[in-house]
């Protein structure tokens, strides 16, 4: 078997596609040629990324497919890539969602289409870099670089208040990350290494862990986002174009969860135990508080954005309950939310492309006009509610079970979120799709196009596969997660 340097290829390939896009001289809104190159690039990247799970050794908890390049001719400042069971699913998720976005863009026309496509390819490269970076420095660079294309996507192709939202998004996340940079520099000065695998073996003194924990937390808590650092998310979602929202909800939020597991939980376990009650508190507030807010929204995207905060509350609960069910639950919840929220944002995009509004009051009885689409949307809604058999259930169930074994009160209150999510999601479905046909819509039948059908069918299948057989994802992650749990001190919470 040839030993393919798969991770560098995955990172570089989108940039090659970028080259093709820039070489074409199209300036129109359709940019057929560029769309084709973007499609081919992202599709080949997705299929190449499947190389990872196929050749992945499930029994090894350590990093695999490692590639190292030296940077400054210095042993400690290297650029090294690798994946373990924790990061691998997210790489697949990234390549998949980028491909989905490109497919969704195909039938559309947008101003400066070339740049738009280019932003997504750059984003893909950075995302894979972030998830596979094995040293803190390159992690930080990739992590921060993601902001640039995302900022452009919101600020350039967004809605009316796009400038405000883009700034808010940028500043919020940057502010959090500055502290992380300080923490990284401190780690380098103190221990002479920023290699993640090496840091995993160190046991840092408790008082240092506390400060480092806060620094990392401030970055990831904004990213995931936790209450009360979440207010950038609804604004960013509302103003971002459809594909921007998909990537934002589908992958960018998961960077926070990934970071929590990779750094806070693995490298700083003592501080994590110390802060667990604090995290529980924020998560429970996020779940209940944002669910209540979602109940009274009248913009579809804002509603889904708030529900994302609630869903991410389950993720943080699962992560910091720090047992195998909790971590499994958090991973599944992140993947599942990546698919379901992406699907919901795509669906809202489909609606927006047709009627140019996302206001819930505008609609009513849409199932008469778009019968097939209404079925698909119902399945996504049910997935978001966490109906058993869909992927949403597995994540919620496992995280809640994990927390229940640690702290019954926290789990009890968070389980109330299950009732609230059913209320706001079904209310959304009722107001948009059921009832008599709204006066704003004409009677003509109109259903989703072939691109959308392909996309939605794949998403629906994924939701059910993960819901019915989550084991196939968990089999990859188990070894790595068990290692984290083994290194974790026994918690009293």
């Amino acid at each position, binding site marked *: 078997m040839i030993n393919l340097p798969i991770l560098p290829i995955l990172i570089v390939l989108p940039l090659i596609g970028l080259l093709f896009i820039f070489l074409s001289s199209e300036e129109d809104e359709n940019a057929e040629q560029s769309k084709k190159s973007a499609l081919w690039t992202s599709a080949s990247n997705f299929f190449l990324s499947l190389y990872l799970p196929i050749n992945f050794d499930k029994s090894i908890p350590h990093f695999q497919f490692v590639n190292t390049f030296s940077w400054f001719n210095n042993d400690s400042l290297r650029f090294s890539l690798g994946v373990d069971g924790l990061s691998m699913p997210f790489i697949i998720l990234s390549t998949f969602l980028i491909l989905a976005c490109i497919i969704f863009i195909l039938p559309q026309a947008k101003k400066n289409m070339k740049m738009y496509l280019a932003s997504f390819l750059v984003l893909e490269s950075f995302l894979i870099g972030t998830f596979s970076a094995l040293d803190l420095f390159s992690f930080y660079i990739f992590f921060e670089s993601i902001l640039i294309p995302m900022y452009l996507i919101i600020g350039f192709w967004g809605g009316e208040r796009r400038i405000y939202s883009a*700034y*808010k998004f940028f*500043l*919020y996340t940057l502010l959090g990350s500055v502290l992380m940079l300080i923490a990284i520099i401190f780690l380098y000065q103190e221990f002479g290494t920023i290699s993640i695998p090496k840091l995993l073996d160190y046991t840092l003194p408790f008082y240092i862990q506390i400060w480092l924990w806060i620094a990392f937390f401030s970055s990831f808590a904004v990213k995931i986002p936790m209450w*009360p650092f979440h*207010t*950038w998310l609804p604004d960013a979602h509302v103003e971002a174009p459809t594909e921007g929202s998909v990537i934002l909800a589908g992958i960018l939020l998961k960077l926070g969860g990934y970071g929590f597991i990779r750094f806070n939980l693995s490298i700083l376990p003592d501080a994590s135990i110390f802060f667990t009650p604090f995290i529980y508190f924020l998560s429970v507030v996020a779940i209940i*508080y944002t669910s*209540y*807010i*979602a*109940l*009274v*929204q009248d913009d579809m995207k804002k509603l889904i954005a708030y529900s994302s905060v609630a869903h991410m509350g389950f993720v943080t609960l699962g992560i910091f309950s720090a047992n195998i*069910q909790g971590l499994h639950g958090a991973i599944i919840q992140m993947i599942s939310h990546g698919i379901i929220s992406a699907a919901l944002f795509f669906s809202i995009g489909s609606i927006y492309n047709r009627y140019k509004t996302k206001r819930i009051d505008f609609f009513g*009885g849409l*199932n*008469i006009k778009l019968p097939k689409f209404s079925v698909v949307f119902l399945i996504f809604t*049910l997935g978001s509610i966490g*109906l*058993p*058999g869909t992927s949403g259930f597995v994540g919620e*169930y496992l995280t*809640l*079970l994990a927390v*229940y*074994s640690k702290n*019954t*009160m926290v*789990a*009890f209150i968070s*389980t*109330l979120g*299950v*009732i609230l999510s*059913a*209320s706001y999601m*079904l*209310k959304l479905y*009722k107001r948009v*799709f*059921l*009832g*008599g046909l709204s006066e704003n819509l004409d009677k003509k039948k109109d259903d989703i196009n072939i691109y959308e059908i392909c996309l939605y069918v794949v998403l629906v299948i994924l939701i059910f596969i993960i819901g*019915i057989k989550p084991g196939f994802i968990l089999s990859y992650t188990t070894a790595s997660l068990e290692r984290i749990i083994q290194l974790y001190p026994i918690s009293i919470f």
Partner: protein
Amino acid sequence: MNVDWSLNLNLLTVTMIIMVNFVSTIIHVYSVGYMSKDPRRIIFMGYLGLFTFFMLFLVSSSNLIQLFVGWEGVGLTSYLLIGFWSHKDEANKASLKAFVANRVGDFGLLISLFTIFIVFGTININEILLLVNSHSQSYFNFFGFQIHSITLIVVTMFVGCMGKSAQFGLHVWLPDAMEGPTPVSALIHAATMVTAGVFLLILMSPLIETSKFSQNLILFIGTITCLFASCVAVFQNDIKRIIAYSTCSQLGYMFMAVGVSAYSVAYFHLLSHAFFKALLFLGAGSVIHSMSDEQDIKKMGGIYNRIPLTYTSMLIGSLALMGLPFFSGYFSKDLILEFIYLSDSDFKIFAFVTGIFGVFLTALYSSRLLITVFHGENNSDEKVYAHIHESPMIMVIPLIILAFFSIFFGMIFHNFFAGSLSESIWSKFMFIDSETNQAYSYGNVPKLIKKLPLIMILFSIIIVFLFYFKFPKVKQIANEKLNFIVKFFYNKCYIDELYEIIIIKPSKYLGRGFWKSIDIDLIDNLGPNGISRFVSSLGSKVSNLQSGYLYHYVLSVVIGLTLFISIYIYIF
């Protein structure tokens, strides 16, 4: 944790599967006729099939997570079918309400599943039942209190059952669910899905036996539901709602039986109820069908000779529901009352008296329904009256089959569920209280107690007859004098309104408050917007310092110099 998809077939689950399949088949056939003019009938049949799938899934699963999949799945299909006529606003509201109310129950069931996994370390039903005895004294830390773990499990599980089986408090969705097509009401909201709660408790009966508190709770809630629902049923005017409340109260009887450890009797009533309640609903559907979709019983009357087959089957269904001798309901309901009498529960007297009173009310609303719908003067308009016709054969034959079972099921099978035979049949699959069972087989129930339900039925039928045929004036006067009682029960004891005030309004208020006051005013204003405002105002202030006058700069240089020098001197 390891969860497999697997099935668990034993006598209990198989009999349930047979019942579900049987009723489901009959209702599928009936639906072919009932929905023949609906353009979306293909989807309707698809949903019915999906429902049957989930119901069988629920019944036959070997572990509780899989059961939960079926449990939520039937909730989903119920949601879809209640809201089947999605152009009707009431239907959409009702379906949403049903889903959310069921979710409240599922919340309890989820907590129960978590506790089971932590206490027993497994969620396989058979393994749990084997481990019950070794955990009967274990305690669980819940909210910092040490609680008897099995009591916690059963109570939270019972919350789930209350949601699914529409017990008092979480019953609000069931009457509204009647917005769905009538075959749906017959299949889901009478015969199968709503009995899932009772079924689950029967399945987990050894667990319930170890917790006295939860038994009392189940008995109490069952009794309250039985009383409440039958009281409300007496004052309703919608034919389907009357039957829906009647379902509610019959489910109450089943829970009462569970509460006094008479699981086999509860199961018997579950099965016999499935037949006569499905019959009643299908009969009501046939009436509605022939009355051009009229559901208000005040606008019917005197049509018994126009639709004789429907009339006969409704009559049989009602008699079986009342529990007149030799009909199914007679055997199953009287058994429940006798087992309550024989039990040693703390609420025994309360439950027994309420149960007997419930029989009285059941006969009251059933005979009221029969009389106002089929007898007396016709109150419908002429067009509808002229159009009254018997339903097509495809709808009548299911009625006849169900009527057959409503008459003979109890007669044939009652020995299998109580008395000496029942113990040898069921003891492997559910808990059988052999003491009470033996007391029953020796005939320890006094004659008067045995005959009491029958006396009540006759008494109530006589009252209704006198009211409607002999002294209609008295009825009117009573209606006027006791208006507040009529209104109170007609409006379902104002429970919907109460929930509106204590749950729905505050939720919206909270949502808006969190959003506008905390998210926007507090976090955004102090956070990002506040900081940017601070930075820009600071910037403009600082820019004021750059005045361009030389003497301003000289002054600041002098001040700065002095400050630094003095600090330097002070420190070193």
